Structure formats: C-alpha cells, structure tokens
C-alpha cells in the first residue's frame, strides 16, 4: 500500500518517489519508465548561464528510458569556468542506466546500458559510453572517458575487464533484478 502512495507516476510511465528531491524540474527530461527512488537528488536548477534576454536551452539533465536511480543518489550537471565565466553544462543519460545507492554523478554523457554501483563518484565532464559496468565504490576522475564494453573499478577508476559481447543483455538483466 505504501508503495503505491510513495511513487508518482507520470504520463510516460516514470515513477518518481515523493521522497526524492527534484529541483528545477522544468529543466529535467525523463524519457519514460524511469524509476527515481527516495532521497534521490536531481539538480535541474544548475543549468547553463545565459546572458540576459536570451532564451536558455532549457535542458539541464536528460534521462533516457528504463533508467533506475537508487536511493540517495545525486545527479548534478558538471560545471567549470570557461573563459572567465563559471557555468554548468548539461548532463545526458542514455537508456537502461542504473545508478546505485549513494552515488554522485557529474558526468557529461552516460550512454545506454550503463550500470553504476553503490557509492561511486562519477567525476565532472566524464563520458561513459554504452555497455559499461562501474563497480561499487569506484571514483572516476574528472574528464575521463570510459569506452564501451568496460568494467571499471578502483580509485581512480581504471578498466579492469572487457565485458563480453552479451554486455547489453547482461547489464539490462542486472538492472531488472535490482
């Protein structure tokens, strides 16, 4: 019973916990069938600074379909000072992305079929390609690129294993069993 009242279901089938903290929801796109658990924080308010008068390209965080954001994880758009101006940059997540409990994500792009474990830190502007598994407790350094079919572990995260050809199915199944 409590399960029903905890989640709000959107038109496209996203399930968002009432206990999650979603700031700047007008700048957030959820693709559909995405689940956001309690105590998740999504910082849609941190969007690109634009000069007065211009219309901002409003998307700060785009999340694909069938994603799963576990309890108390944080999605925050990456930021940097470029040409003397501090600004946030948009963040994009693909489909079938799992973010484990307590992980902090500041990536620029995360591809599809990406499984991020518990208590990970995905550094600013990092790019994670499709079919990647990030083990629990990994810290991915800022600006790093993780190629497809990698399993990443460590502090800073390095590729420890190449995933087999079935990685997409494997990661999708892992996501469904969470």
């Amino acid at each position, binding site marked *: 019973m409590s399960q029903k009242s905890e989640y709000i279901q959107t038109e496209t089938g996203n399930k968002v916990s009432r206990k999650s903290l979603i700031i700047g929801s007008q700048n957030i796109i959820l693709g559909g069938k995405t689940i956001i658990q309690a105590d998740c924080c999504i910082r849609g308010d941190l969007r690109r600074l634009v000069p007065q008068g211009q219309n901002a390209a409003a998307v700060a965080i785009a999340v694909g379909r069938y994603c799963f954001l576990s309890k108390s994880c944080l999605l925050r758009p990456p930021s940097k000072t470029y040409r003397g101006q501090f600004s946030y940059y948009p963040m994009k997540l693909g489909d079938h992305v799992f973010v484990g409990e307590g992980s902090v994500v500041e990536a620029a792009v995360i591809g599809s079929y990406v499984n991020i474990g518990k208590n990970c830190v995905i550094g600013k502007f990092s790019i994670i390609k499709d079919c990647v598994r990030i083990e629990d407790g990994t810290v991915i*350094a800022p*600006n790093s690129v993780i190629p497809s079919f990698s399993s990443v572990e460590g502090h800073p995260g390095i590729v420890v294993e190449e995933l*087999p050809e*079935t990685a997409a199915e494997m990661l*999708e199944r892992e996501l469904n069993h969470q």
Partner: protein
Amino acid sequence: MSSFPYIHISCPCHEDRPQTLTIDSARPISPSKSPSKRDFNFSPIAPNSPTKGRSLLAGFTPSVSFDAGNLNLDSDDEEELTDEDDDNNFDPRDPRSAFSLFPIENLLYCEDCHQIRCPRCVQDEIVCWYCPSCLFEVPSSTVKSDGNRCTRNCYLCPVCTALLAVVPVHHSSGHSSSDHPTGPFNLFCSHCHWTTSDLTPPIQLEKPTSISAQLSKLTHSPRDNEFIRLKQHYAQQLGNAQEDFTNSPAALTRLMGLYTGLGSGSGGHGGSRKGRGVKKLEMKEVDRPREVSEDQELDIIERMAVEGLEASKCIVALATHGRKKADGYGKATTAKQRLAQPHDPRFLSDLTPTAVLLRTKRSKRCRACRHILVKPEAKVQTTRFRIRLVALNYIPSLTIKRLDSSITWDNLTPHKTHRFLLTVTNPLFDPISVSLLTPRRTPGTAFASRVTILCPEFDVGANTDVWDDALMSTKPASAVPSGVKTPPTTGSFTSFSKDPKMSTVYEQKRNYTSVVIEVVPPEIPDTRDTRIRDERLLEIPIYVRVEFEAEVDRDDEEGGGGKPSHSGASGGAVQRERVEYSYWCVVGVGRVGDVVEGVVASEPNTPVRTPVGTPVKAPRTPAAMRTPLRQVRS
C-alpha cells in the same frame, strides 16, 4: 570468486582430449557434400592422430553433444551417471575445471560445430585499434610504426593513472583571458593534482596541442635511443629470418632450438648450432650489454639514503609528536608506478606522463572450423555487431534463487535442508525437454553435500513472442514434445501447487520452468587459512541435457543430418529432427557456515533419494515460506 550464487557453464574444451578431434568427428564429411576446404583447414591445431578421431566417430551420437567427455551418454546411462560413477562426474574442484568454467554470458556458440566456445577456444582477430580516451581509430600501420599508445594528446597520470588535462601554468584570473589561453602549459591530473611541474626538471609545454611531439622532445632519454637501436637490430634480424619462419611446427621447433642453442653457447652466439642439418640461421643478439653509469647509480643510492633518513626522522616524529603523518619513503615510486614506465624511475620526481594504451575491437573465430562467431562493426563508437553468435541465444540458461529468503548465501547452515529454485530459461524457438542430473553427493571433496533435484525432467516452452502467450492459451499445447512425464505445458501460465512436491515443477511460464533443488551441506571445518582451496565453498555440478525437435537446416546441417536421428522425422514435408545436446554447469550455491546449535543432522528429514527416482514426500515448509517468488522477467 564472485558473489553467490553464480552459475558457470563448462566449455567442452576442458576435456583432456583436444577439442579439435571431437569436432572432427562431430562433423563427418557428409556424402552429399565434398570435403570442403575448412574440413582440413584446422590441421595446424589438430594433433596428428587421425585414427583417434575415427574411433571417436564410432561412439559419437548422431545428435549434437555439448560435452565431448560424455560421448556415449545415452539415456540408459543416466542412472549410472548419477550413481557413484565418479569418473563421469564433472568435478568443479578439479584444477583443470577452473579453466573451462565461464558464465554463460562469456560463451559463444559455433553454429557449424554445434559447440559451445569459450574465450579459450576462439581466435581473436583485430578489427581496429582505437584510443580508449579520445576514441579515435588508429590505423594498424601507425600501430606498427609508432607503437600501441595514443599519439594524440591522451596522457595518464604516472602517479594515479587518471587522465591528465592540459592547463595553463599561470592561471590568468578572470576577464583578462582572451580567446586563447597563453602558455606555458602543463599536464594536470584532476584526480591527485599531480602536475608536470612537480618533476625535477619541470616539464612545461608551449602549446596546448600536439603534446606527444612536445613531450617526446622533452623527455627523450638515452633509454629511448637504446630501444630504437635494439628495435632496428631485431627488425633486421627478423627480416633476414623471415623466410625461415613460416607458420609450420617444424619452424617453431627450429626457433625453440635456436634459442636453447644460444643459451648454451655462451660467448659465441649460436655457434654451436651448425651441425644439425638445419638451414643455417643465426639470430644474433645485440652484443652490447646495457651500460650502467656508475655516477648515476651512486646518485640514486645517495638519494635513497636521504629518503631513508627522512623516513626514520618521520618515524621519530611520529613517535614523539604522534600527529605528524609519517610518509616515510613518500618520494619513492611504488612498484606499480615503476613498472608502468619504461625507464624504471626510483623517485616520484622521475616519473613522466604515460601515453594511453590503445584498445582493440576484435572479431572472434572458432578455432576448429574457422567460422566467424563475433564480428563487431568497424566503427569505434558503435556497439553493434554484424555477427554475434553468443551461447545465450542457443543454450538454455540456468538461474538459481532462494526459496526461503532466510537463507544467506555465504553462510549456509550445516545439516539443514536448503531449498533453492532452479530456473531453466529457453532461448530457442522450439520447446525443449530438459533433464538435470547431478551427483547425489558433491564430488571432489571429503565433505560432500547432499543434493536432490526434486523434478529432474521437465519441459520448457518455446521462446515465442510475448503476444503468442495470449493466443496459445486458447489452443491446445501442440508444440510441446510428447513422451515426457511432466504435466502438459502450454505457453501460458500454468499454476502448479506451490508446494514443492516431488516430480512436479515449481513454476512454469512462457519460456522458463522452475524446479526445486534441495541441498544439505555437511559440517565442514574452515580451511581457508590453511589450504589453498576453500572446502566450505559449495559448488554443485549439474549435467543439463536438452532435447528438442528442430527444423533441419538445408544442406549445412552436417553434424546432425549425416544420419537420421532416432526419433525419426524422416521424410516429412517439414523436416523436423530430434536434436539432443548436453553440458555440465556448476552452480556456486554459497559457502557453508559454522554449525548452528539446534540444527541436528536432519537425516530423517531428507532421506537419500535417487535423483530420478520415486517420489518421496518432501518436508513441508511453513505456509509463509511457500509464497511464490516474485518473477522478474528481463
């Protein structure tokens, strides 16, 4: 080992017999088809005893067998196998087994050999090289000439292996910075904040681009010259020898002999090798030993001594003040850092940024029949495959779940009956009938656990479209093969009593069936500290045999089509043929924990049964535990 539970499937290559032989026999040259080139193509791999192959052929079942070791395993042998016939049982603790056990995701399937192929029995071919950091493809000619590292701007921190970023040395604050930041630049690790300015002659770059060229100028050491010299020398030697080293075994033995000869003949290189009628071929080593300059070595020793002194000071400081962080030999490199660098740096200040190693996309071939099993698209950024024959799409996969959620995987209670739910999922478009056989006691250990599969023979529906589900429920079960004792299955959900009674499946849905497996682990002393292998690890070998009727392929069905199989299907309009195959898998159920007070040897609770045998009333579980598990469909 990975976390429990895990299921690994044994690749047939674990058998003593070289796999190529069995394949040879599995694909008899069909009368309709002249021996093709590939029938002979694998001769370099296959050991040279065709007679053995023949003899195997005689015993080989006409159908597909996944397990080369149990060639003569017919249905009559089941009892034998499940009885104390240890020779036939797959022993997961056998040292050899470790090499052939893989999760199903890692296995491929050769359609031509009808065999599982593990990473050990495929041959990789590089499709393209690319830098994992900038994701640019590197042509193989560049790899040959410039080595297997990124020649663009990708460098790793030598201290922590994170990616380095180019930053201007002087942070021009705020507005004054124009469009182009001005140099000099250094490489900065945003993970550990190491910069190239930390080096003893600090490396500073003039431009933020073409870093490789700039760095190679700045960090050119005598060792690089040495390497270039050696490379030239051996390239020349290899060029001379090219004609002799064709890919024949004879050349290989010659090559080996060459080197052993070199080892014995100290001084005169290869001088002792002339007598054997081998074509005269001398591989000259570079005759100059590595030069060690004494001054440098002394310098290093001195610096190490200073470091040691500081370290001892630190320890003293730690002892007296208690607060200061003792970082001892903090300026010395760790073994890992040292090994990553070509010039063997002793101190952190000697480290140089390392260029990113390239990665490859590879296609995979079956070693036996040379057919391509995996072929990725050549573009670096895509994850698609042109050809992808993975075992997941061909052989039924097993999963195991707890029936009783109070079971902790890594702490199983001795003498207690643990119930698990073994689910067999069918990836094929034909319904299959499955028999699961397991040794009554887990083999290979003095502390055998008792294992019983309550319903070892059952059907699994076809992997039809989800929508067929609704249609199937109105139709009778036509596609299910007859002659199996389980209740008739339709593709639709069939509700069996959730009481895990003998000889009934626990649950059956569209393309998967679940049965109950009971495990009673014994009391096992904890040997992790004293022995290499973990006696408490509970691994159950299960022999999975699958039968189904498949439509016969046109002409490339040599393996099964050579002889008509026993079930007939002869001469119908639609050629259907009974196919049978089998494989061993190992279920890592968990670790046995310490003895729990109150749980006595539950002998009456779980009488010893024959696995395929007569129904024995299963111990009743409390109603709360009988609630069906949530089924998760992928």
